[in-house]
């Protein structure tokens, strides 16, 4: 990406902040998708289906929100999916062994965070490029999980624990509340705290950030730890929702999570993006899959349609931003 073209693309003329403009465009895209689906199917606009979409999006969002901060800092975390697998299996074991959902929750969050910290240490201290460090971590985690599970599954958890995945409060699924909570917290952290600002600065130019006195290593470790912790959250919601743990539980989710962040307007070069954008990105991806299921699109076509929509969404977004 050439400097002039890229930067030229990102400059609004008005005082309307860049982020706000991005978000508006992306919401429009999601809205358009909704209108299309509402017109071509009769079941899309039911309350049930909307809640359904939101709950499915929440699983993706947990992963993607952690990933957003990593990508903002100029890195990538490919290990989130594998992290879910390990954390879910550990949490499941602990719940089974102790009967205590609280201890299980702590185990899931703890192992997720620990993996994240390891990623952070590799990236910050050993200076291994994040793509590679977390890709290596992905394999290590898979290996550990496969070894630990030996091809078995763990299933059947106490109803109290299952609430966080399949429960409702005031008619709205609990994961949706969790999603909105993390959306608010993530947005606040990124936009309204000094640490968040420093993460943006690191992503935009790590060398300059270091020479500005930002403790780059510590912030990076924080970012990866957060991403790991969010994988831990996702693993718990998965566990509670699916009522069983198996080794490859999160495997298929890594690329969609990255896609959600990128559709949300973040740049893999770092320094650009918002948590809210990621939220909309996750929503768009989920809507596409939901729509295809509602329309009973032949399964062979699903990857193709998803692929085209991912590219279209990002392209429209870029045009939108260039216009401003």
């Amino acid at each position, binding site marked *: 990406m050439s400097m002039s073209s890229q930067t030229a693309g990102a*400059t609004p003329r008005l005082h309307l*902040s860049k982020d706000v403009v991005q978000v508006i465009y992306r919401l429009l895209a999601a809205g358009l998708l909704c209108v299309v689906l509402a017109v071509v199917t009769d079941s899309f606009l039911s309350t049930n289906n909307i809640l359904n979409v939101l709950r499915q999006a929440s699983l993706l969002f947990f992963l993607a929100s952690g990933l957003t901060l990593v990508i903002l800092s100029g890195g990538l975390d490919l290990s989130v999916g594998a992290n879910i697998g390990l954390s879910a299996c550990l949490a499941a074991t602990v719940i089974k062994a102790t009967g205590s959902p609280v201890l299980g929750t702590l185990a899931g969050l703890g192992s997720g965070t620990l993996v994240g910290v390891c990623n952070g240490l590799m990236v910050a201290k050993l200076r291994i490029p994040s793509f590679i460090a977390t890709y290596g971590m992905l394999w290590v985690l898979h290996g550990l999980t496969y070894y630990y599970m030996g091809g078995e599954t763990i299933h059947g958890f106490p109803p109290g624990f299952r609430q966080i995945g399949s429960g409702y409060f005031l008619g709205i699924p609990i994961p949706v509340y969790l999603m909105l909570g993390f959306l608010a917290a993530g947005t606040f952290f990124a936009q309204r705290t000094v640490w968040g600002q420093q993460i*943006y600065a690191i992503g935009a130019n790590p060398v300059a950030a270091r*020479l500005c006195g930002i403790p780059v290593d510590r912030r990076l470790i924080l970012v990866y730890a957060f991403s790991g912790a969010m994988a831990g959250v996702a693993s718990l919601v998965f566990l509670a929702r699916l009522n069983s743990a198996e080794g490859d539980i999160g495997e298929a989710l890594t690329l969609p999570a990255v896609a959600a962040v990128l559709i949300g307007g973040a740049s893999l070069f770092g320094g650009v993006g918002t948590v809210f954008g990621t939220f909309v990105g996750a929503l768009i991806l989920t809507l596409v899959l939901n729509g295809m299921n509602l329309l009973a699109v032949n399964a062979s076509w699903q990857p193709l349609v998803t692929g085209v929509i991912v590219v279209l969404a990002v392209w429209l977004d870029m045009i939108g931003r260039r216009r401003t």
Partner: protein
Amino acid sequence: MRAAVKSPPAPEVVEEKPDLGTPLLELKGISKQFPGVKALDDVSFAIWPGEVHMLLGENGAGKSSLMKCLCGAYQADTGAYFHMGEKVEIRTPTDAKKLGIAVIFQEFSLVPYLDVAQNIFLGREFKSKIPGLLDRRRLYAEAQKVLDRIGLEVDPRTKVHTLGVAQQQMVEIAKALSQDASILVMDEPTAALSDRETERLFAVMRQLQAKGTAIVYISHRMAEVFALGDRITVLRDGKNVGHAVPGETSPDQLVRMMVGRTVDMSYPRNFRAPGDVVLELKDISATTGIADINLVVRAGEIVGLCGLVGSGRTEVARAVFGADAITSGEVRVFGRIKQGGPDVAATEGIALIPESRKTEGLALIRTVSDNLAVAGLPKLFPNHLFSPGRARRSAEALIKRLRIATPSPNQSVGLLSGGNQQKVVIGKWLAAGARLFIFDEPTRGIDVGAKSEIFALIDQLVAEGAAVLMISSEQAEIVHVCDRAYVMRGRRIVGELSRSELSEENIVRMGMHDE
């Protein structure tokens, strides 16, 4: 939109066109609009063969933009080009090349993992007899010739990313010279060079001039303007405000044309008795090669650090700031031993203004406001909660104080002119409330007006009790501004000059004294 101050009308200058026959290249009525900025407004400009044409103006006046229009990097919104009287189109760099235009850009256009020779001949590779392949032998032979011509002693097979800033600048120059162009544009080529390389460059320029090459030269160094220039064009706020001839104009007059007011270029200082020791280096050696560095900076002083390019000044600055690891010796700041990286340094009140603004100083994709706030975040927001409004107000104050020309605090820093970018780098440390400032080439690319303001600012900082260590390749600056200076050679300190001993001759004598 631009932040220029209201100014009295510029003094009247002779507006008659000298009768020199048909210009080699003439630009008429060039305008260029960027979002929020009218960079060029109906500018006309002409160059004749064999002349060195100085292009002057404040930071952000539109000099680089004009040259980018001239070489096809930007497309002008309106305007026409005439080559030897004939109307031509310059829409792409290729068009410009065909007309024999070569450019040395203000921002480097080098490829880090190609070697020096490949960079010099990028886009003009030599074909081998075997179709499709390259003639590498010829490439290195030709490159060696160009390097010899400008006196750069670097193996043409060296990868460019291993070179220092000055050497990269020389490669950039070599790249333009190798094109044997009839029009050569040089955008602040000497901003990163020391006197020795500069001399060499001037010699080459005189040869070219003798051969009939037209040279457009942009510089903020007044001495160069008068030493080299045949004719001068001054831009202000994107407009051509007049022509001048060096022999008939004084520096003061030129400056007034540029900035629309009088600027005191003697950089007045109030020398005071220094206070407590703020920085003390004892026998510092670092992985970067500097050895046995001893120096002291007291509160209320500006201490210079001079020497040739590559003498290790930057490395000393980085070692103090903790950016490079120290292998032996100790750094004392405010009497306490300092250990740790730049984050520790920043919390202890040290500021480093690095030499390379693009790679080390700025987050180019972020806004002016973001960049100005980033070093001062902990100070501005002690409770860790960031407030965009507060950051913006702080940025607006700095933009005013440093007179940064930007359409708004929300402009991406990458879109500012070179000098204004440099001001942002300085500005961000003012917000951090540092008490020991290390300036590495702080005035690189900064116009004369801004320069005197920045020195006034530095003077004010020391008056308030701050301590300053300043690196500059412009010896005149060191001589004018510093209380004392250390001279470096071969990565060691070879001497100290007190205020009374501080003169350009002494610096050169100490720093150059070759083995």
